[in-house]
């Protein structure tokens, strides 16, 4: 059952990604990307990353993609389906070739993978940790102990981004 669900969500994620790249209307493209992110949220949940799945829906599909849609509608884009939105045949060939080459290189790297990878590896260890500390607690404890410095730096980054976004959007260039 879980395996079938995985392939359904994987199909949704891939379909959403392909439709996003090929739609000319920006609103349709971003909505397909939201569908792709919902598929990814389902996959995260199936892979025992329950909190990541929730945050994917709340923050990514809910907040970041709404920001994209808001900007598209604020700038009033996508009324005429602009053919200039896609590059010419040369660039399309380059894009397709680059995507296929990238997929092949990544595929070769995946074939080369040797398991297990870590000292405390194993699904049992992960599930025991989630059971012991709680689904949110497992992430929270790690974030405030092992990842305390990156957490502070991320806070600073978000502050700089807020100030930068306001300065850029308010000033007339």
């Amino acid at each position: 059952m879980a395996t079938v669900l995985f392939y359904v969500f994987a199909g949704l994620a891939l379909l959403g990604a392909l439709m996003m790249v090929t739609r000319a209307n920006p609103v349709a493209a971003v909505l397909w990307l939201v569908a792709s992110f919902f598929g990814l949220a389902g996959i995260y949940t199936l892979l025992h990353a329950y909190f990541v799945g929730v945050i994917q829906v709340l923050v990514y599909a809910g907040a970041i993609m709404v920001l994209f849609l808001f900007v598209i509608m604020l700038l009033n884009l996508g009324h005429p389906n602009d053919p200039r939105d896609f590059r010419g045949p040369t660039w399309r060939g380059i894009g397709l070739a680059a995507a296929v080459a990238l997929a092949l290189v990544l595929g070769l790297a995946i074939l080369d993978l040797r398991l297990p990878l870590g000292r405390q590896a194993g699904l049992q260890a992960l599930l025991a940790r989630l059971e012991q500390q709680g689904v949110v607690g497992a992430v929270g404890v790690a974030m405030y102990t092992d990842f305390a410095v990156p957490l502070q730096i991320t806070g600073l980054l978000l502050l700089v981004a807020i100030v930068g976004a306001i300065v850029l959007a308010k000033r007339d260039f």
Partner: protein
Amino acid sequence: MVTDVVPLPVVLTLSGLLFAIGAGGVLVRRNAIIVFACIELMLNAVNLAFVGLAPHAGFEGQVIVFFVIAVAAAEAAVGLALIIAVFRHALSVDLENFRLLRW
């Protein structure tokens, strides 16, 4: 005994395919907002690889995903502000207009 839903290579292959689609989209599209959305897709493909590897290489993979999401949110805010600034100047979000730093 709990087992994996799917083998790790399947998850990593899906991640690689999504990343390749995103990279192809960046090269093919001209609309700055769609190019930006393709970059978000590539970030999500990497997140999927982190989550998929978490049972095999340590729980830290799931924690790093949150940092990636935070950086993506910061990047989206600044990037969309840049797009609005360029749109005010050129009345278009075509990537041709992003050439202030080009030699």
